[in-house]
């Protein structure tokens, strides 16, 4: 048959097991229960076990990488949360750095213990970050991105110029009591963040937040105070990012200007763009890929950030949905080619 005359299209059909396991009958067979449970349980089981296995088998370097992953994953999720409510942040490093510096300063100058500096840093970072950016929330679109991009860089210049908080040398902080606390506090925080963000965004409150991201005029017309809702989302997201910052401070025993660096602003964006946005799982997948890419490419030094940005551009231009939605679709549906009638 002449190939050119035949029109073919792709047809996507839900897998039988996906359809069957969509309701209560999933409980009737082990196959369906594992179909539902495994993809959800395996990543978290791995996350909980990895530090244990790695540390006990003597790979303490890689065990630390898992902690860094948890920190980056939280940053990526907080970025995704902001994006859902229509705030495109290019300065996640602002929140990260604020949290980092507040906890280090309280620890270093006032000798607060670590279990107080971490929450204080998270809340303080969220309050300050929200206060700095509150004005821009009245504007829509790209304005938020511009201001958030400029803010962390300005803060770096201010600290450099005034020698405030240690200037270019930074502030030292005490370490976590031992590795297990560091690992399991960060992993617990990551898991709590993941599930609470997901729950939050599927509640009514989250529905409004997502609606603001899509059409703020419609939300205003429904009699909802868009500005105030945006403040709430910003507070929660910056709190998560500042919390990540405090963890990093105590992990590295140091808060410095590098906390405000562009790398911490770009990594969350790249994670979400690569992993796919919308349900936070993509953010985590993206940050997994980037964390391990970072370790693998350690020799490249500053060129790493060039590679992330290139990868980000490629994904934004060519593979727009990201990796996770693709995997999710293949897991639920199969594709076949059919003739166009």
């Amino acid at each position, binding site marked *: 048959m002449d190939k050119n005359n035949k029109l073919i299209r792709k047809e996507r059909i839900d897998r039988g097991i996906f359809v069957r396991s969509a309701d209560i009958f999933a409980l009737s067979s082990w196959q369906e229960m594992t179909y539902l449970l495994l993809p959800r349980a395996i990543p978290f089981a791995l996350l909980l076990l990895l530090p244990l296995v790695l540390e006990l088998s003597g790979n303490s370097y890689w065990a630390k990488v898992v902690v860094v992953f948890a920190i980056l994953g939280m940053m990526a999720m907080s970025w995704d949360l902001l*994006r859902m409510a229509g705030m*495109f942040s*290019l300065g996640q490093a602002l929140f990260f750095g604020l949290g980092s510096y507040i906890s280090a300063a309280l620890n270093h100058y006032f000798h607060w213990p670590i279990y107080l500096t971490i929450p204080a840093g998270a809340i303080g970072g969220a309050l300050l970050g929200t206060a*700095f950016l*509150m*004005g*821009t929330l*009245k*504007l*829509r*679109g*790209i*304005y938020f*991105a*511009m*201001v958030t*991009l*400029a803010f962390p*860089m*300005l*803060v770096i*210049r*201010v600290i*450099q*110029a*005034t*020698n405030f908080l240690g200037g270019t040398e930074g502030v030292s902080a005490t370490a976590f009591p031992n590795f297990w606390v560091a690992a399991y506090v960060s992993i617990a925080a990551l898991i709590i963040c993941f599930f609470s963000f997901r729950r939050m965004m599927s509640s009514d409150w989250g529905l409004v937040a997502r609606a603001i991201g899509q059409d*703020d*005029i419609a939300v*205003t*017309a429904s009699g909802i105070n*868009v*500005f105030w809702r945006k403040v709430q989302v910003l507070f929660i997201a910056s709190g998560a990012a500042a919390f990540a910052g405090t963890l990093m401070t105590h992990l590295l025993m140091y808060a410095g200007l590098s906390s405000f660096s*562009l790398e911490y602003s*770009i990594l969350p*964006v*790249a994670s979400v*763009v690569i992993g796919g946005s919308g349900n936070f799982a993509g953010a985590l997948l993206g940050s997994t890929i980037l964390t391990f890419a970072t370790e693998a490419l350690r020799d490249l030094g*500053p*060129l790493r*950030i*060039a590679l992330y*940005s*290139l990868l*980000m*551009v490629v994904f*934004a*231009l060519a593979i*727009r949905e990201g990796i996770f939605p693709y995997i999710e679709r293949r897991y639920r549906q199969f594709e076949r080619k059919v003739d166009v009638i």
Partner: protein
Amino acid sequence: MAGLLIFGLAKSMELALVAIGFSFVFGISGIANFAYGAFYLLGGFLAYILLNSLGLPYWMSAIGSILMLFVIGALMYRFAVQRIRGAILSEVIVTMGLGIFITEMLRASGFIGHNRYLPAFIPGYVEIAGIGIENQRLMIILIGMLLFLILWAVTRYTRIGLAFRAMSQDELTALSIGLNNNYLALLSMGIGAVLAVIAALCIIPQGFLTVDGAYDVLIYALAVGVLGGLGSTTGIIIGAFIIGYAQTATATLFSSQWVMVVTFLAIVLVLFIKPSGIFGKQKELEEKV
């Protein structure tokens, strides 16, 4: 006091030169070109290469780098931004990503650093009212004024300038009367890149060709834009004068370490009082409804 006036003027013009290219593209096509700092650095870098590696005379290398950057800006629009035009998030990611890519590749190339610099247009300095002022600063004031005059004339009295203004007012209406929005946006990206090179050629001779310079330029372009109002040339000039004179005054009257604090406070203050900037056209949420 005379020194404060003249140095403040030069500083303000410098900031206005830096900010105008960013604001020009944003005002016309609505694209926030976060690769602006990279264009600035790339322009300076190409001029340096043409001047020192190929041994061309300075004026030729300056024109060469301007032309190349026009092409690069246009290509970036055609092959990257145009594909995702209108999707704000993707636009931000693409321009930002390409900007960082260019900047970091230049950092890795090893051609950037404190021993690389561009020559002044006219070396030396003149004395005005007993104060020595480098010729380069005077040239910045001159070029800045000339550039704003040209931009003003072009956007008011030429067909292409009127088309630009139509685009900036309402892109859909401009489309409906037969203006090619992609061509105009491409042109605006190219011109934006050229403005970045002009700023680079003016400013780099005062210092060095450094990677931090690229990020500084982006910050200052954003700061002036946020303060004065993006997309409005009057706003850019006013914003540049406020920051320029505030910085010069703090540096001479207090000490230079407070310069960035003043800039930072100015921006925070303006964001609280009038988030769209002093002359901003960016509408606030309530106004749109």
